[in-house]
């Protein structure tokens, strides 16, 4: 109790330090705690609503109509009675009053949804009435609200889908198939299962999904069901990829993963804010603790052991950290409603954000544990304290005490380990977390090195013209430790704030205007061979033409180098390994969005009488992920006909060209007679013609699916904007934490130069002179730190763009110049505010105070 009492006394009597320490740490913790609460809320929501999200306990899906053999195989594994519901989904163009839109057609039976609900404008909950019975078997549809608005439709209007007219029976307000709106770009239309066939849209090459949903009468363990089903398929069909089985748990985990990735990256940025706050806390504590050395020595003189003195200080830190955590939790709780705004469109419907006990425990742990860890290097000095100093002028820790250097070096280890551990935890990946910490350390060392060089070079300019400049430069060159801390805080903040917009700029530039390409306005697929000519004629009437017409043939990869792919093929990528159904094309030469990487081009058509195998060109990343090399042979099953080719080259594809691009391309002359559809693009459509062109195609050739690329680009820009905004909010938090550090350091530096400032004033320096010294010092620090941080952010953004986004990088003068000017100005302003109270004091008061 004594230590608690003493700690409390110290805190309350040094309230300025305590308040600042708490403020500083709270700022660092806010983002961290808010994100943790948000993450926990999402996990809980998904866990509690997983059945409603899948609309069933288990779902099996296939690209082909499900047969009794496949459903039977799944049903054998169920240990409890069940009910079933069947569904067919595919994408198709739908035309309304003068507009058309790609939509998701969903054919259902009366048992759908087994969990969750569809809420209709007039009919309300479909579970509560016979709306489903009325829909199934009638020529009516339910249409999503978004589509009703886009196509200007009303309930009772008719809607042409494929070759058939349907009546809109109701408008969908809530739809379980559309859990996260940002990931679903196509609004839903529900109709009876039997009516799907009547649309005439199911043709060769149509990408249709067949689903069967299961609802269990009793609880059943679903943990290994997916794997068991895959194993059974392998046993029975010698193929584990015909049908996929998804449990409600996996479905919600998948959804959680999408949000998880965003959360993870935001978490890492929040970690930087926390780190900066830790640096600030450590700095504040160092200043405070240095002033308490004498008290510690007195305590030891009165009989306290160093361990007891340590204990008292520890209690103090824990108390301050605990209060900071509570305040940060309160602010985070208040800020919680803002997070769903940041993530708008990415959140499951019905999501509500809240803070639970675990987030509070984490906050307290981070507040107390984090403070201890950050202050440890300073705390370790207690063991170096020698009360002998009480008989002399000053009480200072001795560096000659046994174990000093080992103790001091070791006291930094927990900081690094904690930061590393937190980064791995936040990123949910050892590799990502470690790379993050390593990059962060490299950035610190680089910035530290730059700072040291700049500060050293300040010494060369100390013969500057004015006395204020001379003093400022001398202060910088001779007080490097404090100045380097400032430099790091500003530099890291600048790096962060500039990094995100720089990457975003490159991405957006590339999405809107990819180098060397004109992005087409429309991308079309499901074009039947006999529709190519009418489509071209239709476009010609409007003075447009089809471009990049490419045949597309569905095929199954059966063998590689004459070995069945099921067993011997060692493919690292799980998704690709499971994927054997591929879209092939054939083409002579390369498109302008492609370039040869390795091997040689195969010119001309393949000669049937040739002894050579037809040539295959593979996309480079696909070849790498499938472990395929030039010279390997690949055998495909094309409508039961085996076709074998040899890999002749690999090519790079610019996917952002929005042109029809394929992983596997055959030499012409092999696949030409195979059943196929075509994909194509339309470019250079003037904006006012876009809608009429799209509508005329939908009306004349309703089975052709058209993607409005301009619309997709707009949506992608919106999403990158939104993600970047969310990240920026966290980055601003880091900058704010950095400014608090700057404030603490500036205040300390000026206070420690109390006598010098006092003397300057007594010798005749005006308030303006002293202010000007502070301005010059922090102006130089702010400018060079911002310049170094921004330069590093440019290098880092280039590196990230090069390795992750395929060199999509664009330099933004505006952002760069603004960052440097704004951060320099903020540094000077913060330093002036921090030091104003000291600067304003009269010399006499300063003398008295000392």
């Amino acid at each position, binding site marked *: 109790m004594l230590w608690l009492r003493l700690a409390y*006394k110290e805190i309350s009597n040094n309230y300025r330090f305590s308040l600042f320490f708490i403020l500083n740490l709270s700022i660092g913790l806010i983002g961290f705690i808010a994100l943790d609460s948000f993450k926990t809320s999402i996990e809980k929501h998904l866990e509690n609503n997983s059945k409603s999200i899948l609309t069933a306990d288990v779902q099996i899906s296939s690209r082909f109509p499900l047969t009794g053999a496949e459903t039977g195989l799944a049903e054998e594994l169920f240990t409890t009675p069940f009910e079933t519901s069947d569904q067919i989904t595919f994408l198709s163009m739908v035309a309304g009053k003068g507009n058309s839109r790609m939509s998701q057609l969903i054919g259902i039976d009366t048992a759908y949804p087994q969990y969750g609900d569809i809420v209709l404008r007039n009919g309300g909950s479909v579970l509560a009435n016979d709306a489903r019975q009325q829909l199934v078997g009638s020529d009516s549809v339910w249409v999503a609200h978004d589509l009703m608005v886009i196509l200007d439709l009303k309930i009772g209007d008719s809607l042409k889908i494929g070759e058939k007219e349907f009546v809109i029976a109701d408008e969908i307000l809530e739809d379980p198939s559309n859990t996260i709106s940002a990931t679903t770009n196509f609004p839903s239309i529900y109709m009876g299962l039997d009516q799907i066939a009547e649309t005439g849209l199911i043709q060769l090459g149509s990408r249709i999904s067949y689903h069967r949903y299961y609802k269990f009468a009793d609880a059943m363990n679903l943990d290994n069901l997916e794997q068991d089903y895959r194993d059974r398929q392998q046993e029975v069909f010698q193929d584990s990829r015909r049908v996929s089985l998804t449990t409600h748990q996996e479905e919600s985990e998948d959804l959680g993963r999408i949000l998880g990735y965003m959360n993870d990256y935001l978490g890492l940025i929040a970690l930087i804010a926390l780190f900066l706050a830790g640096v600030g806390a450590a700095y504040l504590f160092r200043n405070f603790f240095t002033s308490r050395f004498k*008290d510690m020595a007195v305590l*030891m003189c*009165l*009989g306290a*052991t160093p361990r*007891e003195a340590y204990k008292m200080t520890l209690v103090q830190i824990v108390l301050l950290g605990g209060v900071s955590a509570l305040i940060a939790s309160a602010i985070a709780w208040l800020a919680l409603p803002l997070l769903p705004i940041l993530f708008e469109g990415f959140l499951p419907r019905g999501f509500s954000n809240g803070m639970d006990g675990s987030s509070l425990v984490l906050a307290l742990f981070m507040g107390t544990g984090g403070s201890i860890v950050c202050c440890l290097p300073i705390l370790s000095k207690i063991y170096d304290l020698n*009360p*002998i100093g009480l008989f002399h002028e000053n009480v200072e820790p001795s560096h000659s005490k046994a174990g000093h250097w080992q103790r001091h070096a070791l006291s930094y280890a927990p900081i690094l380990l904690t930061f590393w551990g937190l980064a791995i935890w936040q990123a949910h990946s050892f590799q990502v977390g470690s790379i993050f910490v390593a990059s962060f350390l490299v950035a610190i060392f680089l910035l530290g090195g730059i700072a040291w060089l700049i500060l050293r070079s300040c010494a060369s300019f100390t013969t500057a013209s004015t006395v204020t400049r001379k003093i400022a430069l001398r202060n910088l060159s001779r007080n490097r430790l404090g100045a380097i801390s400032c430099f790091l805080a500003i530099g890291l903040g600048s790096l962060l704030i500039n990094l995100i917009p720089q990457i975003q700029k490159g991405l957006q530039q590339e999405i809107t205007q990819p180098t060397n390409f004109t992005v087409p306005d429309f991308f079309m697929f499901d074009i039947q061979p006999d529709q190519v000519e009418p489509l071209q004629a239709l476009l010609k009437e409007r003075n447009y033409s089809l471009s990049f017409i490419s045949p597309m043939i569905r095929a199954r990869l059966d063998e590689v180098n004459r070995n069945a792919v099921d067993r011997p093929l060692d493919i690292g990528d799980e998704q690709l390994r499971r994927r054997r159904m591929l879209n092939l094309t054939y083409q002579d030469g390369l498109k302008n969005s492609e370039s040869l990487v390795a091997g040689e081009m195969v010119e001309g058509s393949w000669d049937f009488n040739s002894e050579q195998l037809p040539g295959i060109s593979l996309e480079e990343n696909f070849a790498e992920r499938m472990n395929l090399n030039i010279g390997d042979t690949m055998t495909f099953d094309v409508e039961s006909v085996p076709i074998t080719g040899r890999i002749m080259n690999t090519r790079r594809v610019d996917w952002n060209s929005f042109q029809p691009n394929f992983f596997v391309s055959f030499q012409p002359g092999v696949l030409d007679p195979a059943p196929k559809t075509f994909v194509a693009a339309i470019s250079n459509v003037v904006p006012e013609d876009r809608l009429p062109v799209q509508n005329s195609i939908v009306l004349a050739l309703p089975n052709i699916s058209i993607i409005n690329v301009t619309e997709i680009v707009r949506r992608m820009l919106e999403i990158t904007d939104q993600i970047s905004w969310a990240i920026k909010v966290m980055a601003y938090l880091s900058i704010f934490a950095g400014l608090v550090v700057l404030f603490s350091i500036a205040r300390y530096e000026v206070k420690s130069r109390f006598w010098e400032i006092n003397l300057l004033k007594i010798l005749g320096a005006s308030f303006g002179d002293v202010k000007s010294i502070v301005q010059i010092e922090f102006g130089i620090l702010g400018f060079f730190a911002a310049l170094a941080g921004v330069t590093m952010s440019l290098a880092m953004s280039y590196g990230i763009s090069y390795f992750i986004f395929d060199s999509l990088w664009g330099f933004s003068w505006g952002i760069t110049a603004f960052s440097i000017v704004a951060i320099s100005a903020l540094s000077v302003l913060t330093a002036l505010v921090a030091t104003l109270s000291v600067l304003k004091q009269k010399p006499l008061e300063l003398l008295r105070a000392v």
Partner: protein
Amino acid sequence: MILEIKNLCKTFQTAANLEPIEVLKNLNLEMEEGESLAILGQSGSGKSTLLTLLAGLDSPTSGSIVLNGQDMQGLNEEALSKFRAQNIGIIFQQFHLMSHLTALENVSLPLDLFKDPQATHKAAEALGQVGLDKRRDHFPHQLSGGECQRVAIARAMVVRPSILLADEPTGNLDSSTGETVSRMIFDLVKSQGMTLLFVTHNEQLALRCARQQRLQGGKFL
């Protein structure tokens, strides 16, 4: 005998290539219980070093210090801390009060350290003895120099130590306040039968002790 110093030497090694500085050279001293001894000497004579060794804050290069029958060199750091808290009272020239504690809290601190349940009561009594019972709730910055030193005296004596070490206790005070403070120390020591080792360079003050020892160049003259 309360204190016995035998062949006490203290040498400081400065730099590897420089000669070590011999601060205390073969000192021998004995003190009886209730005796008062003044150690006189100029600056740099080794007075403060002797005090730090007697307070157990540093260890001698050779020789021994036996206080109250306990050889202080035989104690580890933890035991030495406890021993100091119960047996040694120190009055510093610069007072060294805890700035964030009131006068009463400063005085009760050593008692609190070894969990004396009567700490507050005893501290209040000690403050009364130095005439500060009305200033018990004042912080050091609200007290004058003389008052601060009286609080420090009360803090040193409240544990009823076997020996009281006073390091120039009036050095930071004006002559009149210094006189009051020194009189108070001698009166309290006398009334409580305490052993006092008084370090000073003031000859007049030294004469108030029963015995005087002059320290010069690390040796008793």
